[in-house]
Structure formats: C-alpha cells, structure tokens
C-alpha cells in the first residue's frame, strides 16, 4: 500500500511539473486536462466496475449531475464554485442511492440495463425541464475563486490532477480495506459472499456512492472549465461508453489501467477530431486535397472518432478482454 501511494505521489509530482516545462500552450494543456479528466472518470468507474464487478453503463448521469448542479448553483445561488461542487456531489449521491436501491437487489444483466434507464431518465428530464436550460444548455459568463485566474487553463489542470490523485488513493485504500475485500468477494462469487454474511446490496451501494461522488466532481470541474454545458455534452450515453472503454482498454480492476486507457484514447480521439490524419495523408501526397476522397476525408474524418471507438471496443473485447495491463500480466 505504501509503495503504491509513493508511486502515485511521484507520478503526480511529475505531472504537476509538466505545465511549467511546456509553458503557456492552451492547446496542449487542453488535451492534458481531457486526459486527466478521462483518467479520473475511468478510475472512479473502476471502483464500482473493477472492485465489485458491477458494470455501470450510465455514469454520464453522475457526471451530468455534477456539471448541471454546479452551473445552476453558480448562476443562481452562490458564485463560489466550491458550493457548486459540494451541491453536485449531493445530487449525484441521491441519484446513486435511488439507482442502487432499485437495482442492487438484482443480478446479471439487470444492473447494466437499469443504469442506462436511469441515465436516460436524467438526460430526458434535464432536456425537458426549464430550470436546466432545456435543449439550449447553460452558459456561465464569469466565475472566480479566491482571486485565482479561472480564465487560464492551469487551475483546471491542477484541479483534475488532484481529483485523479484522490481517486487513485481511494482505490489503493479500498484495495486494502475490509470494504475492498468484501467487494472483491462479491465480484468473484455473490452467493459465496452472501453466505459469509456480507451484505451485498450495502457494499455495492457504498461502492456506487464513492464512484458517483468522484464522477460528479469531474463533472463540476468540467462545467466551470468549459462554462457551457448541454445534455449532449455531459449526459449522453456516448460519454458513459467512453468511460467504460477507457477502463477496459487499460485493464479493469487494476490501479493504473484506467489511467493508461485515458493516455491512449484521448490523444487518439483528438487526432481524429482535429483531422490531423487527413492533413497528413494530403501532405504525404497520398491523397489530393481537391479530389473526391480528399474532400470526403476533410468533411467526415472528424466524425470518425466514434467509429474508431466502436472498432477499438470490438477488437479489445475479442483480443484483449483484460486490457493492456492484463497483457503484461500474461507475459509474466
């Protein structure tokens, strides 16, 4: 445990120095913030999915709960972002408690299906209510905290880094705690765990609450960082799937798997989204910019990152079901 915490501290210290080394580069910092956010989200998901073996397909609900609550609190009640974050955690935990109470009595396919249904109810309600801004979303013009310049990206880099460190530390602590052992027992064999007197629903709910709270903090930070949210950005099923995919590619149930997944997937999505690939093909002279294929690539490749996610998911499940870290373990 001490060794793992030391590694986390060293990695975090190295990551904390990165912005100083890179200097003022909003584009690179933006991508790094996305990486840290995805790593934190996948690690938070991993607490439930990895330890307890309960795959949530609706974590966007908790992310969106954090983002929306923060934006509403900031724009209507209190301009201090910290209040927004705390309020977001409370709302996310309420949603998690309701979800957990309904579905953790059931097994197998039901939790996955119900988690999607809850997330869709949250998404559609947010879309239909007026106080959430409906389809237009919420725009925040100005925000400040203790005189820190929140127009710069660096505070959010450190905010996401702190969240990731907290999430990883909780994962380490859980791994050595009674709760962690109970959760792993539940993952391996629910009946055996129940026969040993483990309260299945209670511990699953506990894992879901921790996971949901951490996810909502990521949502709050994202909302204050981007200052504009709508349902398609923070509550979409696509986000839930990206979170799972990140964890799976790295390795579910491992400490560093979700982080590795984020380090791989976020730059990949960025490359596809910003059309680096299309430009490269043109520059190499493989495709003419004015030809039909060139125009097609220019117009469409930016949308192809979801297609790439689909292909990666299929390949990963078929050939790498234990993720990249699972691959190394097999070699040993």
């Amino acid at each position: 445990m001490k060794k793992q915490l030391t590694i986390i501290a060293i990695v975090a210290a190295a990551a904390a120095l990165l912005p100083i080394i890179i200097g003022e580069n909003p584009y690179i910092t933006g991508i790094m913030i996305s990486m840290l956010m995805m790593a934190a989200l996948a690690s938070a998901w991993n607490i439930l999915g990895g330890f307890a073996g309960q795959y949530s397909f609706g974590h966007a609900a908790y992310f969106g709960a954090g983002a929306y609550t923060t934006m509403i609190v900031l724009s209507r009640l209190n301009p201090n972002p910290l209040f927004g974050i705390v309020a977001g955690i409370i709302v996310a935990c309420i949603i998690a408690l309701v979800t957990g109470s309904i579905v953790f009595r059931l097994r197998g396919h039901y939790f996955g299906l119900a988690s999607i249904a809850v997330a869709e109810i949250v998404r559609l309600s947010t879309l239909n209510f007026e106080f959430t801004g409906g389809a237009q979303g919420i725009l925040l013009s100005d925000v400040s905290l203790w005189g820190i310049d929140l127009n710069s990206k660096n505070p959010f880099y450190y905010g996401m880094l702190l969240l990731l460190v907290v999430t990883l530390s909780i994962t380490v602590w859980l791994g050595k705690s009674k709760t962690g052992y109970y959760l792993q027992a539940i993952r391996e064999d629910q009946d055996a765990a129940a026969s040993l007197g483990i309260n299945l629903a209670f511990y699953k709910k506990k894992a879901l609450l921790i996971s949901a709270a951490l996810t909502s903090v990521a949502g709050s930070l994202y909302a204050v960082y981007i200052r504009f949210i709508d349902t398609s950005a923070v509550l979409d099923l696509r986000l839930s799937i990206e979170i799972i995919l990140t964890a799976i590619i790295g390795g579910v149930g491992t400490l560093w798997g979700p982080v590795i997944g984020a380090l791989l997937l976020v730059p990949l999505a960025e490359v596809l989204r910003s059309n680096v690939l299309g430009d490269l093909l043109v520059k190499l002279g493989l495709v003419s910019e004015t030809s039909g294929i060139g125009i097609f690539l220019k117009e469409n490749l930016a949308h192809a990152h979801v297609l790439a996610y689909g292909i990666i998911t299929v390949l990963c499940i078929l050939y790498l079901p234990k993720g990249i870290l699972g691959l190394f373990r097999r070699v040993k």
Partner: protein
Amino acid sequence: MLFLQSLLSGILTGGVYALAGIGMSLVFGVMNISNFAHGDLMMLGMYLAYFAFTLLKIDPYLALLLIMPITFLFGFMLEKVFINRVINHPHQNQILLTIGLGLIMSNTALLAFTSDPKILTTTYSSSAFNSASGISVSVPLLLSFLITCAITAILYLFLSRTRTGMALRATSQNREAAQLMGINVAKMSAIAFGIGTALAATAGALIAPTYYIHPLAGHSFLLKAFTICVLGGLGSVVGAGVGGVIIGVVESMASTYISSDWKDVVVFMLFLAVLLFRPQGLFGKKGGQ
C-alpha cells in the same frame, strides 16, 4: 374519444415495438446475450426500406420480402464472426461487444448517409381511415400492425411446429441439456441471432414510412426494446409480444395526457418499476434475483 383514439394508436404502434422486442427476447433466450446493437439493426432496416423505395421503386412493405432474408443472413454472419466468440464470456463483455458493433453500424451509416434525416413518403403515408365517430386510423400504421401480426403468427408456428423451432426452444430452456440431446447449439445461436436481426430490421422497415430515418434513430428504440423484454420477462417471446403492445399504449397515453416530451421518461420509469416490483416480468420464469 381521445382515450379511445390514443388507445388504438398505442396498440398499433405497440405491435411494431413488439416485433423488435420479440427479436431481442429470442436472442436473449437462446444465447443469454443482451444485444445492444438491436436498435442499430432497426436503423439498418429503416435505411434498407428507404433505399429499396427510392432507388428500386419497391413499396416499403413489399420490400420486406427482400429485407428479411438479407438481414437474416447479415445477423447469421454477425453471430458467426463476432458474437459466438463471447458466448461464454462474462455478460458485460457481451454487452460491450454488441455496443461496439452498434457504434460501428451507426457511425458507418453516419459517414455514408450523412446526418440529414431522410423521409420515406409513400402515396399513402399520410392517409387515414376515418370512422363516423371521429376516430382515425393511419393507413401505414394499420398495415404495419397487420404485417406484424402475420409475422408473429408465422414465427409462433415455426417455433412450435418445426424441428428447428423446437431445437431453438430447447436451447433456450437449457443449453447444456439441448447439446446433450444432439442439438447443434452453435448453429441454433446463429439462427436465433439471424431471426432476431431480421425481426429488428423488419420493425425498422415497418416504421420507416412514419418516422424520420436517421443513423442514430436506433438508440431510442434500443431502450424501448429492453423495456419490452424486461416487462414481458427476459427470454419470453409471448411476453415480449404483450410487452410491446403495453409499451405502445403507455407511450401513446403519456403523450396524450402528459406531453410527448415526457413519453420516453414514462416508459423508462415503467422499466424501473418492473425491476422493483416484478423483476421476472409478466411471463418470465423466476431467476432474475
């Protein structure tokens, strides 16, 4: 009058939902897999009907005779190439694999057909029978419902009377025992997935004349199909049929008496309520717990 009108249109729409639900339930029963690509297979059916109509000038209902065998083969191949490799995996891997396949299908459609919604307008798309009492029945919805009934009846006869149908049901009841009795369960899985795909695509083709055709159209139907399956009891074909009609009526009532913005929320609430109070569904065997 309003009540009767929404009841009637709910039953008619529900029939088509039932078709999608039955396809999913069959796959679940035989293979024990939640197929998250089901909605995207419906989308495939919508586009096939659209292109059969615009390019080949075939009426969308006649085009079913083409769409069903094509999509059956497509589903059969999908199972042979991808799905059967995860049949003994943990169920979350199966879910993720089908999500991945669904993403590939919907985003390929997005690249190929762009995100502009397409509309399939037949000569009878907006025509309706009007009764003296003021109730009107949309012609395409009524036709879809009748076709659904016919297909369901044929499927029922197939499952209860033919050797393959009985083998499918045996596999659904107990995979190991069926295998011991000499049933080729791998082949049954591929057939079940093929039929499930064909039913999803048929449902898609049947609603194509009354809905917007869009690459992401399948997503809202995916959850509806799940709700239908859970309501009817996962794996129960009869239950899925009844569940489909119930969901259609609930949705129609919700849009009449609450608002059409909230109809999906009501359907998903019903889904959670079923999980809470009757997780085995209306016709399912116990074992959800």
